[in-house]
């Protein structure tokens, strides 16, 4: 019942550990590396992230809400949701990954062209979240067990602002600098 063996078997044939899984999709270094070109490319990549339409559970609704009128992810260049992994470079793992779904998640990740990034949105994608209990038999305890994750957005589900912050963090990771100010929270506690 949900032993370590079955978990690894489910990940992918030939891939036996998360470390090996982390190597999937690494970009081979270019023959000639020009720092300026690289920087410009990264700037372009960071500001036009194309996420994949990939909703798993509750967080997917918040992901949709982030793309819609109120929160409008397109202001930060990340609104082009692509149904096909071949056209996407950002995978937002929004929801619980079950053991049955795990091979599909890995396949989808493999199909994305490099360079590619992953945001684990919500507690389920981070660690299994509320569905993590002793004797559980159905879920993968976090997306990081399957694929390398760049940014974590906690919450159950996170507010759309959380996902936006995740995108900012990812842009920070790609380019090495932050474009947007940190949102000044108005504390309700003072009231």
């Amino acid at each position, binding site marked *: *019942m*949900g032993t370590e063996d079955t978990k690894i078997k489910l990940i992918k044939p030939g891939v036996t550990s998360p470390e090996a899984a982390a190597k999937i999709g690494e970009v081979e270094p270019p023959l000639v590396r020009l720092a300026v070109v690289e920087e410009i490319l990264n700037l372009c990549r960071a500001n036009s992230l194309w996420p994949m339409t990939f909703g798993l559970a509750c967080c997917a609704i918040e992901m949709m809400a982030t793309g819609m009128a109120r929160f409008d992810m397109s202001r930060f260049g990340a609104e082009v949701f692509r149904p096909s992994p071949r056209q996407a470079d950002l995978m937002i793992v929004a929801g619980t990954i079950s*053991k*049955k779904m795990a091979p599909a998640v890995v396949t989808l990740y493999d199909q994305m062209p490099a360079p590619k990034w992953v945001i684990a949105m919500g507690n389920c994608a981070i660690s299994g979240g509320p569905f993590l209990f002793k004797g559980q*038999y*159905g879920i993968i305890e976090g997306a990081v067990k399957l694929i390398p994750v760049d940014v974590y957005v906690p919450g159950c589900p996170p507010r759309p602002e959380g996902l936006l912050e995740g995108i900012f963090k990812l842009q920070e990771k790609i380019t090495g600098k932050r474009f947007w100010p940190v949102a000044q929270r108005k504390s309700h506690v003072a009231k």
Partner: protein
Amino acid sequence: MLLSKTKTAIESIFPLEIKEADYARVGYHLEVILDAEKVVSLAKVMMAQGFYLEDVTAIDLNPDMEVIYHYAHTEGCCRVTGRAYTPRHAPEVPTIAGIYSGANWHERETHDFFGITFKDHPYLVPLLLPEDADFHPLVKEDGKVKQLKDIKRAEVKEQAGAPAAGEGKPAPAGGEKGEKA
């Protein structure tokens, strides 16, 4: 009206095994306790009476697993619960997928969770669990599984003479099976 009509219809086939439940407390009107063989004839009666199948599920009990059929009616308010018992070590009941097409999935799910075999089921493979799953998650460990008398509400209705005696006494019909353990 609907209730009495249904009761009569079921009684014509199962004269002894039907009892009226206290709706306000348990949420269903009729409880039918069946032999495992008779679930199909109950399904036929319910179909003829215009009921739809809510779900098929089971409870892991010792020594007999309880397979539960919930029926409800679309006109008016009448809920019928059918209960069948099948041995825990080799649980098997006939399928009703031939009568209620929706039962197909419910039975597959019950097979997933409890390992109950539905005889003559057209396609009894795991539905919710992975295809190669070889475990039944809702089957309890040996130490945790209870007997029927541990989960049945003590009968206090009707027996005006001995309301307190209900506590120790197992529920009729099904309860006796639990006693034998």
